[in-house]
């Protein structure tokens, strides 16, 4: 006796959250059944394995049918075939578009192309996430990217409107889209300690301040592409390190303000500009011309090149985070320093790019503080 056909259809579509999770995680029916058995559900309910099998199959079938609709979530709301309460619809969508931290870290900043898709095998092996789940997550990224890529208006709003995601998840997707579009490098070894949350935080700041949308809300791609003009202008900041007087003035302003407030004052002072007094550089790991101010300004000046945009995070880590970290700056000192460092530029009489500086440094300060951890 075999079950040739076995279905259950409710007027209200039954959604079992646990099974949905297993399905999203890409387990086959038999794996899912095995996992459910291990969860002790049989003992709780007195059901048999056959019942569990049939139930799992049913849910999988339903999810399979729903998947088409989940690709365009507004369709799920308007379709008539499955009667699902709104709260459940939201749950279905939210979970479907949720992603694994481990996965997103692998893909973040990569081009969402067929090539990357081919690498999913390796990612799956590396992260222990099933290939099926990897594909789903990758396809989600790509789908969202395609839809909002060339859209006008706020990136987060567009995502929210077209995919009906929660605010949190929409912001995450905005970060993913932003990273994918600008191809920021996130996979280098020295960036491994950063979480997706760190990048997402930076992405949000950059979207708010560095994109076209920051100045004009009526442009295509406004939240996705960086403001080229702005990047171009950033070169002007070079004067802060090129002009020796300006640099010294800047340094003294910062040092005066921070004296006694910083536990790592001497290191700060030493690192602020190229070691004119030479010997103080006790950190051999940091290359000679490396100092904090120059580093930050140089990063700005280079951003006009696409390649340097991609390496933004690598540069930030190398030029700022690592030196500070090697001197054991406490986070609070970093904050005090950056605040003072950005603010004191306003007192530099010879410096004409105050607005540009604020647009750059305001964002960078936020990013650096977020990136500065172990």
């Amino acid at each position: 006796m075999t079950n040739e056909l076995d279905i259950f259809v409710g007027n209200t579509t039954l959604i079992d959250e646990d099974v949905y999770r297993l399905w999203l995680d890409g387990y086959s029916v038999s794996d899912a059944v095995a996992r459910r058995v291990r969860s002790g559900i049989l003992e709780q309910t007195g059901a048999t394995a056959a019942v569990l099998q049939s139930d799992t199959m049913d849910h999988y079938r339903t999810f399979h049918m729903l998947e088409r609709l989940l690709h365009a979530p507004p369709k799920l709301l308007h379709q008539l075939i499955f009667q699902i309460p709104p709260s459940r619809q939201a749950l279905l969508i939210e979970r479907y578009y949720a992603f694994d931290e481990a996965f997103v870290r692998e893909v973040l900043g990569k081009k969402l192309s067929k090539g990357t898709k081919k690498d999913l095998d390796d990612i799956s092996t590396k992260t222990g996430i099933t290939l099926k789940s990897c594909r789903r997550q990758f396809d989600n990224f790509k789908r969202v990217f395609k839809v909002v890529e060339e859209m006008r208006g706020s990136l987060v709003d567009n995502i929210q409107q077209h995919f009906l995601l929660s605010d949190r998840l929409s912001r995450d997707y905005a970060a993913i889209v932003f990273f994918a579009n600008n191809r920021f490098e996130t996979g280098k070894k020295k960036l491994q300690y950063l979480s997706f949350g760190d990048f997402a935080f930076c992405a949000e700041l950059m979207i708010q301040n560095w994109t076209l949308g920051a100045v004009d809300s009526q442009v295509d791609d406004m939240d996705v592409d960086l403001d080229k003009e702005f990047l171009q202008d950033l070169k002007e900041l070079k004067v802060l390190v090129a002009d020796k007087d300006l640099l010294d003035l800047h340094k003294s302003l910062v040092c005066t303000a921070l004296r006694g407030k910083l536990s790592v004052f001497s290191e700060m002072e030493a690192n602020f500009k190229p070691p004119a007094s030479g010997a103080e550089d006790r950190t051999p790991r940091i290359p000679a011309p490396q100092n904090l101010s120059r580093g930050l300004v140089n990063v700005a000046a280079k951003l006009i090149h696409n390649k340097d945009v991609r390496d933004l995070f690598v540069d930030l880590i190398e030029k700022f985070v690592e030196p500070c970290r090697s001197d054991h700056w406490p986070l609070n000192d970093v904050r005090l320093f950056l605040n003072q460092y950005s603010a004191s530029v306003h007192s530099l009489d010879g410096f004409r790019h105050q607005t540009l500086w604020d647009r750059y440094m305001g964002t960078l300060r936020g990013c650096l503080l977020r990136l500065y951890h172990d």
Partner: protein
Amino acid sequence: MPGKLKVKIVAGRHLPVMDRASDLTDAFVEVKFGNTTFKTDVYLKSLNPQWNSEWFKFEVDDEDLQDEPLQITVLDHDTYSANDAIGKVYIDIDPLLYSEAATVISGWFPIYDTIHGIRGEINVIVKVDLFNDLNRFRQSSCGVKFFCTTSIPKCYRAVIIHGFVEELVVNEDPEYQWIDRIRTPRASNEARQRLISLMSGELQRKIGLKVLEMRGNAVVGYLQCFDLEGESGLVVRAIGTACTLDKLSSPAAFLPACNSPSKEMKESPLVHPPSLGCRSTQNSPIHTATGSRLTQNFSVSVPTLIYTGMGSGSAGKEGGPFKALLRQQTQSALEQREFPFFTLTAFPPGFLVHVGGVVSARSVKLLDRIHNPDEPETRDAWWAEIRQEIKSHAKALGCHAVVGYSESTSICEEVCILSASGTAAVLNPRFLQDGTVEGCLEQRLEENLPVGCGFCHIPYDELNMPFPAHLTYCYNCRKQKVPDVLFTTIDLPTDAAVVGKGCLIQARLCRLKKKAQAEANATAISNLLPFMEYEVHTQLMNKLKLKGMNALFGLRIQITVGENMLMGLASATGVYLAALPTPGGIQIAGKTPNDGSYEQHISHMQKKINDTIAKNKELYEINPPEISEEVIGSPIPEPRQRSRLLRSQSESSDEVIELDLSHGKKDAFVLEIDDTDAMEDVHSLLTDVPPPSGFYSCNTEIMPGINNWTSEIQMFTSVRVIRLSSLNLTNQALNKNFNDLCENLLKSLYFKLRSMIPCCLCHVNFTVSLPEDELIQVTVTAVAITFDKNQALQTIKTHVEKSLQRASTDNEELLQFPLELCSDSLPPHPFPPAKEHLESASSNSGIPAAQRATSVDYSSFADRCSSWIELIKLKAQTIRRGSIKTTVTVEKASPVAEGNFRNRSAPPCANSTVGVVKMTPLSFIPGAKITKYLGIINMFFIRETTSLREEGGVSGFLHAFIAEVFAMVRAHVAALGGNAVVSYIMKQCVFMENPNKNQAQCLINVSGDAVVFVRESDLEVISTQQPTANCQPLCTGGEVTT
């Protein structure tokens, strides 16, 4: 002439991509009614076209309006080749034809294609302007309301219940026409869908005409079925109960002519004299009477006692003569009807006087080609025979009417089993005489209420029982005789006193049969039938005992015929009626008592059975109050002695008494194990697993013993098909497979719905079919309803509710419907057409008659019965289970007033979600009030695929199809302005597959009543006039109108 149909095509959305190149579609719409077709413009390159068409106007006869569906076809325009069809929508405009229902149909309809399923949606507005036509000879019956609900619909009052209406129409099945060989599957499916839609429209119109003839205005309990007879044609038949209904809100109803002559009745409260009935065929197990002293009695309950007092007074004096008079009147009123049948299963209090028991008849027919669709006499005659038989069975039980009546068929190749069943009953003569006096009615109900146990009392003469039945005095009123077990096809009367909770009881049975052709096949089947009925009945009885219960409600026995087997599936809801005696236990007796190990085995089994009974009693809270000796008093001993005289106690049953003390009663039921089969039977008894805790199940409208429903409901359909291994199939293996199939299915349901605990599966409806040699298909539709565990314990309710009932008369008004049977208002021959048919059928010498002669006609049950009864007698000697007559099962129940159901005061429920359309097989929605009936939903769909694997195999295919059917039902309801379907039923789900060809086909037929409901919690807030207006937004809200 009188009607103008107006249609506007507004927009489409989610259309499929029809042009691969552009990934878009150039869609336009054809609107067709009758022979007229209109077209919209082509809306280029869009998947969400906005046609916003003009109003297309069709001027049509109202006859056509009733018969024809509105047909909307969405197509993709193609300049160079033929336009491709995207899909269709059929809209039944019947609901627009009577004033109280919907006024406009407007909403999004799924565009359906029989090959691809749902492909997008279309927004349509439909209106009808109807001109009144007073032509007496008109062929239309616009304005007659149809209800699937098998009780008086909630917002109506029955002025008169006229009685049975039936009709059938036949046609050739397009699938079997020659043209089918050359047309596409899509064309063939569409031809079929359209034909069936037409036929059901015609059928409804014809039934409507009959109703008008009877001066009714509605059909309640309308049941329409399709018989796919294959080569020999397509039959659409329907039965229902004609009524004159009156909307409750309207203060003064129009009173039909018949209401006057009922004055004497007032003085004579109805009593139930022991002399009412005559005799009954009854399958009662053998009992010893001595035990009943120990059995519990329910008469302790206060209300019952009061009523008993009143009842006895009247009974003593004028009761006798009056009764006879009333009876005469009732009978004369009913005898004018050709068939005094009622498809209703629930009745207003006082309507049902006595219940005799289940009556059923089956007949095996050989199908022949329907040669002339306009003369469906053959089928008419077949059904007429069966109905006649039912009528005579009812008479034999001393009853003049049959309630809870239904008909069904099972077809395999050219053999067809026709079945009809119902519950023989005595109806209240007052209702027959008394047209309308509402004021009096209430009084009467009061008077009448005392007899809460009345319906259990036997309608037949105890001295004249043709079959041995064990009678005792009613445990409730102690005045009248009741049987020990009662089987019925109706719902539990609202005022019946019940102890504990009820439960679903099923008997399942398979019998192998040799493959045979034509007559030989029919003969083989009809020879098997009595055995099957007997065994089904025995199983039911055993399982009932095992549950410690004494009555079955909602009994439905389905016999399905296949190529090489017959299946029997009986479902019912077991209940402990307080008026009936406590059932005895089950006693096993071995055949070879000297064998030690064998005896050990037997005693082991016995212990298991005893344990199960004890467990069940606990589970279902069956603990009737013990009767004190004084209460028992005099009446009891007498019947006991008599039964001793009538029936000699066998030794074994005496032993039982000794052994069975644990149950506190001596009338145990003896199962003698004389062979392995019997052993299997006993084993199978014990394999039924009770539902997990927190779950209850029943197949009636409401679960006896639960009345605190909360608002969450989940209707579902589950289908399973198993393939039997064809190797050495035996009856036993088959039985086991079938039993496992049903049990596993139930287990799956319990598991799936576990999040709703505590909940009850109501109206559990199993359907078995045998699509192929080795396939068994079981389809279940039911609704799970949550209830509040912490509310009102059963025992408390019994008392509280009485007062509640009294107090809240207006509440009751809605649920308690005065029904009247009015003989005066009826033409002498309510069914002239039927009679003519009968006559012509018999006199007609044409082809049908000849064929009938050749076909084996087994419908006359009497012939079968004699041999059959002998057979039972034989068996009874060995098995000692008492005798049963297959066709006629007689039982009674006891009425103790306890109106649990009506007062189930659902707590304020969660706010309804916008746009949700609820579906339920029940006639009500817990925690809500139905404010409007919008019309009947009756839909037929065919779905076919030639890419079965790609659609997820058979399961994927059917899963999607059923989901689509639900969606289309919901969309139609929403477009009518409704927010629920009640009395929903999936009447047919015919599934055929051919995996080798990667093909499958499925036909589904569903029906129900579209309604508007308002949450009781909302009602409290809103003033009484608003609800109707208020619910419109509720229903349409979900529609995203663009």
